[in-house]
């Protein structure tokens, strides 16, 4: 849930933008990180662990734990807690190891 009326900081959320997670549109505000915006929309699972295939999501918000990795606009393993949302951003969960991408693959 977005906090529209913050008890101390007031009404900070003004400009909405649309981001896509698994191709579905969600509303975000421009001062939010990707991980936060997804959480506001009820999306907490951002990927799964490599061996035991357990759900993973935001943990430290400081770019240290790498638990919030997701694929953003075609780039794998992006720390979503350190990446600000942008209109039209396409996000996919980090469920598999990345493939290398050759020059030929729209790179």
């Amino acid at each position, binding site marked *: 849930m977005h906090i529209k009326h913050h008890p101390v900081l007031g009404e900070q959320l003004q400009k909405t933008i649309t981001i896509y997670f698994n191709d579905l549109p969600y509303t975000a505000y421009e001062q939010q990180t990707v991980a936060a915006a997804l959480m506001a929309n009820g999306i907490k699972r951002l990927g799964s662990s*490599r061996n035991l295939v357990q759900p993973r999501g935001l943990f430290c918000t400081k770019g240290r734990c790498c638990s919030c990795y997701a694929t953003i606009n075609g*780039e*794998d*393993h992006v720390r979503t807690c350190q990446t600000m949302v942008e209109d039209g951003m396409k996000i996919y969960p980090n469920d*598999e*190891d*990345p*493939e*290398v*991408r*050759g*020059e030929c693959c729209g*790179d």
Partner: protein
Amino acid sequence: METSYETIIIGGGVVGSSIAYHLSERNKEGIVVLDKKFPLSGTSGSTQAWVWVHNKTPSWYAEFSMYSAELYPYLSKKIGDVEYKRTGGLSPFFSELDREKAERLAEAYEPIGIKIKVLSREEALEKEPSLNPDIVGATYSSIDGNVNPFRLVDRYMRAAKKNGVQYSTYNKVTEIQKLPGKFIVRAEKGRFECKNLVLAGGTWSRELGKLVEVTIPINQLRGQILVTEPLKPFLNYTISGLRQAFNGEVLIGYSMEEEGFNRATTLDVIQETANMAIHYVPSLRKAKVVRAFSGIRAMPEDGFPILGKIPGVENLYVAAMHSGVTLSPLVGTLMTELILDGETSIPIDRYSISRFA
């Protein structure tokens, strides 16, 4: 703690642990391995761990390496899965001069049974489509591969312990005394006695040699290696310079610096290594590097292993070399023969320390 042993091995890295394991297969009693820190804290734990034969020179050294590589499949059966993969080795080259070298190498190695194919650009790209299309060609040999060095040493250690070998770790040897029929070894955690003493100090061999007043001419060579995040399997071969591990990480590096025991990494070499990675395999560009590490390699003064008895000191042995991972199965086997039988099934005279005298 029992302090009197048949054999003490100083150094629990890949070489020392292999000797301990192979020795314990035949002679279960009285073996202890002393390590100044903990196995894998030195060179054995900071390597790409290629099992590499095909462009070792000269031919007799390549042959020696080949015998060791041949032992790997059996080793895995005996000590457990060490993630050994005989992937075949590819060395891409970018110039006609290197093709010339490659052709001559292939000719020279045919008589000793090391088959090297000199691939054309097209053949190389067919084998390994991720290689840079700008290559001129590549040498290829099916005997090369790689292994997980952590597993390798861990498995040697566990198998040796199962056979009764003791490990005394964080126990730096400070003094060695030769008495008739025995050695007295003083270490931080106590005093040990033994009949046979094996120096397997790797990169610290020269320092160890000083304790017995023997010059073991081993120098240090630093190599920096980059590790990527795990990627879906895409590299088929061990490429000279990089390889993909079982878990998908790509290990990259083939640098050499003389920096003594300083195992720092530097952005200078890290960036150069990144350039190499992209030069060899352009599609790695998007892969993220998660860590870089340095390994201090042991480098004998003439480049070749120092193996065997130390002349003039009864029951004193040395095993120190650069390519410990490749050579460990063979070195463990031969040192065991030497200690127990007094002779080896494959001659090692060429590798005697006496050549430096």
